[in-house]
Each structure stands twice: as C-alpha cells, then as structure tokens.
C-alpha cells in the first residue's frame, strides 16, 4: 500500500513502542505507559494489540489474528487485511504456521512454541481498577505489591457464591511479583500462560499501557489453599470434533431452545475434524 510506512506506524512511534515493549519484558507483569496513537479503527477494536504487532512485525513474519478463538470474525478478518495491506505480510489461520498471533480473549488450544509471539488485545489493563478507581492509588499498590484487596474480592466471591465466581479476566501473579490482568481470556486459558515457551505481549490502546510475560515465566492464578483455582469449562463435547478438553462456545441453532456446544478455537477444531474424517 503506497502512502503508508511499513506496518502503518511511523518510525518514531515504532521506536517509542519498542522501548516500552523492552522495558515491559524486563519487568514481567508491570504495566508500562506508552503514547498510544489514533488508529484507523476505534478504541475497543484492538488498537493496543495492533500497535504492538505493528512495532514487532517484519516482512518474514506470518500473522494470525483470532477473535474469541475464531479466525473468521469481523475483527480478526479486518486486522489481518490491515496488515496484509500495510505491511504486505503473509497471513494464516493456522496456529502452527504463524510466527505472530494477535488475539482477542483467547489463547490457542495448540501449545505455542519458542519462535512464536502472542500479542493480546487488552481493554482494561489494570486488574485492581474495579476495586480501586484511582490510578495514583493502584500504582502505589503495585509498587508495594499490596494485593490484599484482590484477595478480599475473591474471598467475597466465595462467601457469596460458595466458589470464586470469576470466569474470565481472572487475575494472575507474574513472576511472584506483579498482579496482572490476563485480558478477558476465560479462566480456562490461564494455566496456558504459566511457563509458556512463547513471548506474550499485551497492548491496551485506550488505556495506553503495554505489559509482557517473557517465555518460561511463572504465571499463577490467585486462589486460596482451601479454594484452589479451577479452570471452568462447559461440561460437554464439541458437536463438530468431539473434543472434551477444549474451551467451548454455546451456539443457539433455532428459536425453540436448540443449542450446541462447539470449540471456540476454530483452527484447532477444523484440524481435529480433518483427523477424525481421515480416520473414518
């Protein structure tokens, strides 16, 4: 695409984002402020993730974009098209073939490798924000590693519901130091972040924050000894591939109460379906 720099952003913006990314990697789980730019799509559509991807992306990369696990939703299709046009990179729907995976609210089911980078789109980077609205105060709490408030919140969940009723955006401790929002991925995905071989980068465009989890870093979901963390999953098998160990979406099929459960990760599901068909 003529008239634009490679990967849309200008070079001084990329340098600024790159400096923020490096500090984020050096301080795992700490939110680094950055000068988020106006992008040709609205906040809430992945501007943070797109800016991180644009700063990292090179011509040899193969980009995959997923939205809630799916490669073919509007958001994912648009972002892939954006980088095809502005950077001329190859895109893919295959988790295995990708070198950079930008994601909204899921971690692919297939384990990621050392040579891959996972870029999360983050709407609200501050895990303490709902409990303490003052940014000056939450900053202080992170500085002091004072996370008692979050434990109280989880405790109140247990007192009210008998279990921790947080099913997504489930807070994690990174490298035993910083409390971090994993972005609104289902709690089911949280264990995948722990000791992941791939680098994980998080971009929040509206909130202007970048944070990161380096490879092979401890990421622990907050819990209590007598109420250990339990990843939640719908107790069904995928209607299409039969999987019983993946995260499922509930899909309404008609207006008389018909519903099915299918894998949220469309690439993983179609791979399994292909294997199943080949076996038959």
């Amino acid at each position, binding site marked *: 695409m003529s008239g634009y*720099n*490679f990967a849309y952003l200008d*070079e*001084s913006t*990329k*340098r*600024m984002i*790159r*400096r*923020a*990314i*490096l*500090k*984020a*990697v*050096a*301080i*795992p789980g*700490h939110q*680094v*402020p950055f000068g988020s730019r106006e992008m040709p799509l609205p906040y809430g559509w992945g501007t943070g993730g797109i800016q991180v991807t644009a*700063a*990292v*992306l*090179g*011509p040899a990369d193969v980009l995959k974009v997923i939205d809630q696990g799916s490669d073919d939703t509007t958001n994912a299709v648009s972002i892939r098209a954006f980088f095809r046009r502005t950077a001329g990179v190859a895109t893919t729907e295959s988790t295995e073939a990708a070198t950079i995976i930008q994601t909204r609210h899921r971690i692919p089911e297939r384990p990621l490798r*050392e040579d891959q980078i996972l870029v999360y789109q983050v709407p609200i980077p501050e895990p303490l924000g709902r409990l303490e609205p003052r940014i000056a105060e939450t*900053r*202080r709490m*992170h*500085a*002091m590693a004072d996370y008692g408030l979050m434990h109280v919140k989880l405790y109140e969940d247990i007192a009210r519901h008998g279990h921790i009723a947080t099913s997504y955006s489930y807070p994690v401790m990174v*490298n035993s*130091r*910083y409390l971090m929002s994993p972005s609104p991925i289902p709690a089911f995905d949280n264990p995948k972040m722990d*000791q992941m*071989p791939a*680098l994980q980068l998080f971009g929040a465009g509206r909130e202007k924050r970048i944070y*990161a989890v*380096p*490879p*092979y*870093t*401890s990421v622990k979901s907050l819990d209590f000894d007598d109420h250990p963390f339990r990843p939640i999953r719908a107790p069904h098998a995928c209607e299409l591939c039969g999987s019983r160990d993946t995260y499922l979406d509930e899909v309404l099929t008609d207006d008389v109460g018909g519903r099915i459960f299918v894998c949220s990760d469309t690439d993983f599901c179609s791979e399994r379906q292909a294997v199943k068909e080949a076996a038959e």
Partner: protein
Amino acid sequence: MTSPSPRASGTTSPRASGTTFPGFADPVLDAQASFRAVLQAMSRPGQVQRVPDLPELPPGLSPAAAAVLLTLVDAETRLCLRAGPEAAAWVRFHCGAPLVTAGAAQFVLDREAALPALDPGTEEEPERGATLILEVASLTEGRGWRLTGPGIRDEHRLHVGGAPPGFLADWTANRARTPCGVDVILCAGDAIAALPRSVAIEEG
C-alpha cells in the same frame, strides 16, 4: 571523513559536527530486524542474537552497539555516550539524541559508567530504569556465567569476554533493587545478548 573539531567527546557536545558514516541501508526494515534481535535477547536472557549488517561505522562503535542505538535511540531519549568524537557526531546526525551525563540518561553507552550510578527508576515507575549498552570483547553461549530467571527454562550459560571488573557484584546489587534497576544489552561485534534486571547471574 571531515570532522572539524576532533575534540574528546564525553557527555557534552560543544557543536554539532558532521559525519560521513551511514546508518542502516534500509532504515525501516533493518531497524525492525534489529529490534527483533534485541527483543529476542531481552526475552531470552543470555541468548546470543545477531543484528543486521552495518557496512561502515565510525571508530569507537561495534556494529551491534550502533544497530541498538539506531533502533532505540532518538530525539526523545536522553543518551550518555562515551565512544569518541566520530561516534558522537554519527549519533548526533542519525539519532539526534540529547547527550547527558550517565546518571540522567535513559540509554548509556559508556564503559566507565558503573551500574550503581545509573538511573534505576522508581518503585512506581520502574520502567524509567536506564538501559546500559555495554561493549565487551566476546559473547559465547554454553559456558561461563550461569543465568536463571524469567525467560530461561532451567538455566543458560553465557561467557562474556572482557566484562568490566566488579560487574557481577554490581549486578547482584542491581538485581536486589527489583523491580527497579538497570537492564543491560551486551554488544560484541555484530552479536548481542541481554541481561534484563530480573535475571540472576552466578559465576560459572
């Protein structure tokens, strides 16, 4: 090379002087490749990465240090540079960074700057901690220092030829300030390896 005032360049630069040494052949894609090398290095401490080739360089800078400067330093970053007048002129032309003393700098390329003297950031803003670009003689994986920490599965071995005396003691003190602290990018020839503040180093 026309360098009108070849005076010893330290942290101050009396007048802008010209340079005939070029930067990246492809400023956009070479900077991207160089950044990816630094990102790899920073997220996998001690792993040696190569930066894109810079054919012609001012004396006083290794290809790796020059590539790191071109990739990360610009008019928005305070730089402390002690690499000779020609390198200073080159940096002024290609990066345009304001030159400051070591303690005030975000990026430091100065063999004599000791880790404890650099800005470690604050508890609330540890990302303000400086980045030290350290020229060393050689970087060899598989032996030497034993590195552990985020980014390393079990342990990683890195031999650093020509590290400044007392570096390991300084590093232990630097790491004790976590999350504050200084991050180091080691440069030797066209090779780099990084030591983020989170990594622990033991003598091998």
